[in-house]
C-alpha cells in the first residue's frame, strides 16, 4: 500500500479527507441554518435527524475516521517537512507563501480543539451554559439551547475565533486539495487561489451569522 507511506500518496489522503471535511462543513451549515426558521425549524430538523440512529452514527464514525486520518498525516507530514528544512537562513524573504499556508498545522490543531469543545457543548451537552429542555411539541429544544449559549458573548467570541481559523485553514486548503488531486493547470491555479479565499470567506460569514443574529437580538426565545 504505497499510498499510506509515500510522500505523494499521503498528501492525496490528506486531500481526500480534507474534501470530506469540507462536505461536512457544508452539510452542517445547511443543517444549522434551519435555526433561522425558529424553534420549529431546528427542533424538527434535530428530531428528524436523531430518528435515524444508524445513519447518524454511521456518519459520525465515518467523519471521525476522516478527521483521524487528516490529523495523523497532517502532523506526520509537518514534522517531516520541518526536519527537511533546517531553516537556518540568516535572511529569508518569502515571495509567495501566505500566513494561511504557513500556519495550516496551527489553524488545523486549533480547529480540532474547537471541534472537541463544540461536541462537548452541543452534542454531549456537557458545558455549564447548556439549557436542556423540551419544546411545546415535546421535542428536544435545540433552539433554546443554542440561543441561550450564543447569548453569552464570550461563547460567541470563541465561536467567532474558531470560524476565523476555519477561514484561514480553508483559504489555503481549498486550492491545495485541488492541486494535490491534480485537478489544476496554469489557467486554473489563480482562479482556485481566489476561489478558495472567496468560498472560505462565505463559509466563515455564514457560520458567524448565527451567533451574530442571536447577539443582535433578532433570534430570541
Amino acid at each position, binding site marked *: 500500500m504505497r499510498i499510506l507511506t509515500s*510522500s505523494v500518496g499521503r498528501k492525496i489522503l490528506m486531500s481526500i479527507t480534507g474534501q470530506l471535511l469540507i462536505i461536512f462543513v457544508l452539510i452542517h451549515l445547511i443543517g444549522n441554518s434551519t435555526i433561522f426558521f425558529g424553534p420549529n425549524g431546528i427542533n424538527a430538523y434535530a428530531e428528524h435527524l436523531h430518528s435515524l440512529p444508524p445513519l447518524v452514527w454511521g456518519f459520525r464514525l465515518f467523519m471521525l475516521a476522516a478527521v483521524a486520518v487528516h490529523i495523523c498525516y497532517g502532523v506526520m507530514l509537518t514534522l517531516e517537512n520541518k526536519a*527537511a*528544512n533546517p531553516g537556518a537562513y540568516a535572511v*529569508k524573504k518569502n515571495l*509567495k*507563501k501566505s500566513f494561511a499556508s*504557513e500556519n495550516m498545522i496551527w489553524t488545523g490543531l486549533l480547529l480540532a480543539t474547537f471541534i472537541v469543545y463544540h461536541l462537548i457543548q452541543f452534542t454531549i451537552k456537557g458545558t455549564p451554559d447548556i439549557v436542556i429542555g423540551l419544546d411545546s411539541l415535546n421535542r428536544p429544544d435545540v433552539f433554546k439551547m443554542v440561543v441561550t449559549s450564543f447569548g453569552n458573548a464570550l461563547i460567541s467570541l470563541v465561536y467567532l475565533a474558531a470560524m476565523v481559523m476555519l477561514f484561514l485553514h480553508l483559504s*489555503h486548503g481549498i486550492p491545495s486539495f485541488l*492541486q494535490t488531486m*491534480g485537478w489544476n493547470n496554469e489557467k486554473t491555479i489563480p482562479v482556485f487561489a481566489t476561489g478558495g479565499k472567496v468560498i472560505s470567506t462565505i463559509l466563515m460569514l455564514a457560520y458567524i451569522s448565527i451567533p451574530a443574529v442571536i447577539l443582535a437580538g433578532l433570534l430570541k426565545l
Partner: protein
Amino acid sequence: MNLTLHVWRQSGPKEPGKLEQYEAKNVSPDQSFLEMLDEVNEHLIKEGKDPIVFDHDCREGICGMCSQVINGVPHGGQERTTVCQLHMRRFNDGDTIYIEPWRALAFPILKDLIVDRDALEKIMQAGGYTSCHTGGVADGNALLVPKPDADYAMDAAECIGCGACVAACPNGSAMLYTSAKVAQLAALPQGKAEAAERVCAMTDAMQAAGFGNCSNHYECQAACPKGINVKFIARLNREYQKALFK
C-alpha cells in the same frame, strides 16, 4: 559603488559556519554578481586569506551551478535570472548583501557557499530517462509528437536542476524539480511507456533523499530562474494517481 557583504563561511561539512563581513569596493554596475565575488576573492587572496568558495560553471544562465541565496531569495530575486546573470546594477551604492548557501537537509554544505546536490541526481537516476534499444538512428519523423505536447515538454525541460526550488521551499521539498522531469517525459510518446514506474520511482527517491513533502506554498515557482510552473506538480500528482491504479 561600495557594498557590504555578509557571506556564509564554513570550512567543511561538519564544521560550524558563520556569516563574515567583507567590503566590496569600486564595484562596477556592469559586473555580474559572480564577477563581483571574483574581485572580492582576488583581494582576499592578496591579503593571504581564504577566498570565498562558490559553485559556478557556464556563467550564461544554463548550467544550474551557481547556487546562492542572496538577501533571502535563491538567485537574488530577479525574475528568471540565475546568480551569474544577475548584474550589480540591480543593487545600490551602500547596500548590505547577505549571501548564503542553499539550505535543506538533502543538500549538505560542503564548503562556504557550495552544497552537495547529489540528491537531485539520485532522483534522476531513479527514473529520469526512457529505456530504448540502441542501434541505428531512427527516422526523423517516425514518432510523431503533437506540437502542443512538444511545447509542454520543452517548458518542463527548461529546468536546469539548480535546486533553487528546494532552497526556497519552507519544506525543503524537491517536488518542482521532480515534477518537471516526470511531466516532461510523460508528455512525450517515448516516455509514456514507463510513466507509471517513473513517477513512483522518482518520488520514492525524492523521499529517500531527505526532501520534504510539498504543501503547495508555491515558493518554488517564484524562485525558479527558469520559471518552471507548479502546473507540473499537478501533472505529477495526476501521473501518481494513474500509477496507483496500474
